[in-house]
């Protein structure tokens, strides 16, 4: 992870760490904080705890997003301090979920914009002049548009990939595929590195092909406190505890010192957490399907 971030994530980059609740790559976020990246434009539908930590650590210049909260548990207080009090200053570019999905869809298709029927009657276009409109060449009606998002680097966490980066995900898929194809560089972080034969045995499961991937990092438990379907459960207690940590700048600084700067890598983080085996997933293995002919 250290090498991948050093080589592929630079100061000033536009960075996407995606994953809708599922497969959020905290391991990559922590490494970016440890390597003290600055002036990043962080993009993500749901900034979640990891962007709250990156904002608190001073990595972010700007946030592009659609829902900034601690799902089911409260607020992202580092984010709120930045917006409400400018501590530290943070530029915002705000959409709805559909708008962010559409931005990444346009990016993945290498079109300059995407069309959607949305935003009439809302104050979002007034708050964000990049939400514009286009006239349908068939019906004459006006539809909303958002500009393509083409990040410098996207980090996709996944259950498994082969060494060439052919990546398989199951469970919630979020916008991982769109983000990967939209991006100039892609880092795939996996729970498990598998033989190419495992990928080839079930090709419909592949979400991102190796030809779109620049680096594969093997990082078990890399999504904690978020989760990886079939590998480990969401650490809801951590999300609940974050409310108090995040609310107190001193507590947040202590957290970063202990769990981010205070460890060298993910294995040490897991150890510092006291082990995470209690989150290990139970078994609900599905049957395979026949690819024969």
């Amino acid at each position, binding site marked *: 992870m250290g090498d991948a971030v050093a080589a592929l994530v630079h100061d000033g980059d536009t960075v996407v760490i995606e994953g809708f609740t599922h497969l959020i790559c905290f391991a990559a976020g922590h490494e970016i904080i440890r390597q003290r990246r600055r002036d990043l434009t962080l993009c993500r539908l749901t900034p979640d705890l990891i962007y709250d930590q990156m904002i608190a650590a001073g990595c972010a210049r700007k946030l592009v997003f659609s829902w900034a909260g601690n799902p089911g548990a409260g607020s992202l207080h580092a984010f709120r301090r930045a917006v*409400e009090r400018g501590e530290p200053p943070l530029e915002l570019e705000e959409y709805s979920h559909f708008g962010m999905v559409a931005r990444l869809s346009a990016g993945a298709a290498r079109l300059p914009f995407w069309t959607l029927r949305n935003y009439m009657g*809302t104050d979002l276009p007034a708050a964000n002049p990049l939400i514009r409109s286009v006239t349908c060449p068939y019906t004459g009606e006006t539809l909303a548009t958002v500009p393509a998002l083409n990040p410098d680097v996207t980090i996709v966490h996944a259950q498994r990939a082969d060494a060439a980066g052919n990546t398989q995900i199951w469970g919630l898929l979020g916008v991982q595929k769109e983000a990967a194809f939209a991006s100039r560089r892609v880092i795939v972080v996996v729970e498990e590195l598998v033989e190419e034969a495992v990928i080839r045995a079930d090709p419909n499961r592949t979400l991102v092909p190796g030809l779109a991937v620049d680096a594969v990092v093997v990082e078990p438990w890399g999504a904690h406190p978020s989760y990886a*379907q079939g590998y480990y459960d969401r650490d*809801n207690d951590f999300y609940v505890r974050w409310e108090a940590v995040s609310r107190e700048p001193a507590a947040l600084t202590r957290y970063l010192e202990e769990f981010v700067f205070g460890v060298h890598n993910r294995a040490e983080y897991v150890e510092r957490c006291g082990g995470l085996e209690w989150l290990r997933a139970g078994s609900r293995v599905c049957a395979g399907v026949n690819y024969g002919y």
Partner: protein
Amino acid sequence: MPPSVTHTPAELMTAVAARELRDGEVVFVGIGLPNLACNLARATHAPGLVLIYESGAVGAEPERLPVSIGDPSLVTGSLMVCGMADVFQCLLQNGRIGVGFLGGAQIDRFGNINTTVIGPYARPSVRLPGSGGAAEIAIHARRTLVISRLSRRAFPESVDFVTSPGHRMGGRSRRELGMPGAGPVRVVTDKGILDADPDTGELVLGALYPGVELDEVRAGVGWTLRCRERLQPVDPPSDRELTLLRDVLDPRGLYLKG
């Protein structure tokens, strides 16, 4: 003993919301009371209700109470899990969603909802999470239901920021603005039900819960609340509804305590 003592406001709101759902409808669900309302409806009069989460899980039957909209228990055993581009394009914008649930920090006289900021956008006094999928749900779901407790802070005459559009925005109707869905037709509160007037879009009192005085409701909204000519009667949660909510759907009282 008056009914208000035998159940919590959250239980009453959940039961009332559940009764709004019809069997076979497709519902875009959020976590918390909407999720409980949907599952109560499934367990009672609407077994064929299809639950869709914006995370991409369709037809989920979670074996535990999900604490986030992307909880793994919503995936295991669901009918379909698709990417979010499909959720917003092929399901929501496509017009497949019958009912969307919304809540918000502020709901105004015309059903506009604010989940973005309290105060000015550039330097708010309180920064809220933002739209998420709420803006497009409010525009596309065939109708939306809002669940919120009454208070003057939560129900101002007009919201600080329109995240999710209601009715009569700048004097123009939803139809004039090209919105496919009917918008927030009903707001389920802890004291009664507000309905959007079909002509003006204004929220008016449509039902008062047993034991609640009209003045209590009026004190909870920031405009002069009008009433329908005849208020609908509302039954308190039945024993069956309460048993399901307390023993089966939220046994740890995560959402129904208060």
